[in-house]
């Protein structure tokens, strides 16, 4: 599992990570979202014991990042932002090299390399020079490298960024599969759809601080305004917009559709449907507009920006 408490990292005067506290249980996937330079990579580097925190502490896979760095790295698989492969080696030798570093006996590391490469559709490229791999193949190889020693914790930086849809699905399937066997994942990504598909919980980081952390629903409830309903009718609205005034707030409408916000859809929606019947409007569908992670993300970042501006204004 991953446990961090007030993890902070300063580079000179610049605070890259500011009091990050996270907990990811075994079998859980946490997606860390944030703009470029938000502190995601530095956080991951501290979790891998590559960088020492300025303050705070963390335990990864049960080991302390400061006092047991070698053990932390032994039980963590890392997919770095830059894959950094040795291009003159072939895929099998490359994985064999890392397997040896993780003290896997030769036979086991060869078997695991072949199994994982086959799982990701790279079996034909085992003996091929890495320099001849496509971008997506290289990313998959880097991912296999992170998994070669069967780590308990996987820290994956943009795991599918360079992949075609089919390859991306293979990777997602692999993550889902590993999650079942109680592996802990921290994924940093800009791909909000992927985060939505994979993550149990989302953490949004900005200026080194975690500004939101929870499940998608928790974040939606906390940060996004009242749910939006969309009503589609057969024909014209026949004055429905004016008729609904006072009952709901119509936010948008077209010739045969409208959207409104309500805090109590259970009470309000039947009343809306009654008024449609009264006006002779034939309802085709009435459904909530799904709030995407993108909506939540943008809302959270905008709120944080506003708070920061207010604070600056007060300070000035």
């Amino acid at each position: 599992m991953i446990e961090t408490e007030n993890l902070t990292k300063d580079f000179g005067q610049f605070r890259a990570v500011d009091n990050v506290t996270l907990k990811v249980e075994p079998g859980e996937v946490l997606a860390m979202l944030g703009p470029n330079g938000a502190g995601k990579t530095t956080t991951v580097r501290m979790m891998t014991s590559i960088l020492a925190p300025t303050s705070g502490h963390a335990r990864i896979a049960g080991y302390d990042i400061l006092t047991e760095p070698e053990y932390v790295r032994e039980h963590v698989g890392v997919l770095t932002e830059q894959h950094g492969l040795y291009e003159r080696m072939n895929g099998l030798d490359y994985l064999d090299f890392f397997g040896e570093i993780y003290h896997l006996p030769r036979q086991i590391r060869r078997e695991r390399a072949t199994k994982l490469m086959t799982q990701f559709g790279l079996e034909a490229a085992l003996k091929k020079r890495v320099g001849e791999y496509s971008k997506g193949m290289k990313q998959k190889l880097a991912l296999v490298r992170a998994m070669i020693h069967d780590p308990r914790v996987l820290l994956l930086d943009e795991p599918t960024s360079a992949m075609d849809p089919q390859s991306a699905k293979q990777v997602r399937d692999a993550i889902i599969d590993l999650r079942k066997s109680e592996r802990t994942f921290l994924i940093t990504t800009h791909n909000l759809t992927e985060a939505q598909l994979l993550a149990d919980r989302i953490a949004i980081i900005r200026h080194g601080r975690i500004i939101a952390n929870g499940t998608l629903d928790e974040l939606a409830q906390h940060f996004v305004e009242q749910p939006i309903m969309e009503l589609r009718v057969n024909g014209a609205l026949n004055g429905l917009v004016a008729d609904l005034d006072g009952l709901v707030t119509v936010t948008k409408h077209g010739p045969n559709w409208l959207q409104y916000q309500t805090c109590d859809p259970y009470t309000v929606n039947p009343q809306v449907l009654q008024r449609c019947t009264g006006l002779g409007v034939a309802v085709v569908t009435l459904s909530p507009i799904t709030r995407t992670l993108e909506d939540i993300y943008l809302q959270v970042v905008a709120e944080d920006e506003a708070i920061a501006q207010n604070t600056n204004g007060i300070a000035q």
Partner: protein
Amino acid sequence: MTTTTSPTKNPSGNYIERTRRSTLSNALIVTRREVRDSFRDWRIVAPIIILTLVFPGLAQYLAQQFAGFLEGYGATIIGERTIPFLLMIVGFFPISISLVIALETFVGEKERRSLEPLLSTPLTNTELYIGKTLSAMIPPLIASFGGMMLYLLTALTGELAWRPQPMLLVQIILLTIVQALVMISGAVVVSSQTTSTRAANLLASFIIIPMTLIINGESVIMFIAPDATSPSGIGALWAIIVAMIVVAILLLRVGSTLFNREELLGRTIDSINLGGMFKRILKWTIAINDECSPARNPLDWYRRAIPYSLRKLKTPIALTIAVFVTAFALGFMVSQDPAWRISLPEAPSYDSVSDTFALFSQQSLQQEALGLVMWQNARVLLLTLILSIFSLGVAAFVIPPIVYAILGFLLGQLLLAGYDLSLFLAAILPHGIVEIPMIVIATAAMFRLGAIPTRPPKRMTVGQAWTMALGDTIKIALGVILPMLIVAALLEAYVTPMVIGQFMS
């Protein structure tokens, strides 16, 4: 080398058998990969093969021609001594490639971003450092020894039928190894300060130029050394070997300090922020404590900032005193050897010397002496400072102790010639009472400044530690050394001659 097996249970319940190994065997995993990778690169393989197979033959041909040419003029000794020199060159050319490999291994990986996956593995900094250092050394050394073997075979069995002292061959082989080690350990230090191979190659001139000068020096020694045919080897070459081993150890230590995950990933740009650097140095120059709090005024600076920096010199001062006492004792011991005896008049005539010292009471001479004494002391200290920075503090314990060795030698000679000890004390003590502590403090500060990269304080990078030490050194130079330098020079120019004059009359 111990090897144990420890199974680790995964959350899935599977056991993965893991074999724990020693530091060296872990390092060798990296070495094997890097060496194989080097041999996959034709740009490394081609010069190694050419220099191993072609150059020894060429060198041998040149040696034959040269020896033959010189024989015509009866200067056979020059031709003979060219052979070991060329053997050294045959060995040196391939090891110069180690510099290229080291820069490629350390900075090249950083540049290609392939270092981070390696840093994310359980390998320790030391294992990575040893692994990479060995990988930069092994291929060039194989080529170097291969070339030397070829050259030796032809020199021993060919037309020249060279019969060298075995110890000379040992010396040349040792020199080749330590030179490779110094270049590689230097390359690691250079690499840590850069993020591109281009910048590293430019900075590498700081390694290759001094190394070439050392090779020049070694070749001159081989030609002119009076003990060139001694069965115990050339004395001066042994001194160079020892000095280079010391430098290599210090450089390896600096390299291992710099080769840590924090330093490697922390430095991402090669820009210079001179303003920021000067600010940091200034901060330490006026600091009164470890938190870098500034002194409030010049009085506060003297009262708190200077003692704060002097306290840091406790160990270096103790070391300096020990080195100076040893140097003095060595000088005295050498003076007792009849071979080093100087012919001084057995029955000293103080009157004639006394007249000479009386001349110093003239004001113009005293002023001239003041300038000379100050300039002499200042330039010795400046030279020591510069060399100390580049030699990681070694020069601080080489140049100033020479003065004390000479003093010890002179005392020995004076006593042997029947002079009174009080004459020696009269000539040294009046200004020495200020000058000796000044030299001790200055040497200790210069040693600390040079040596601090080899052992930076905890939680400080090498750069931060060096900036702090430089600030401390400037502080001590301005607040302690400079005033003492002036006072000592005044005493030496005005008081010492008077005391000697008084003593003699």
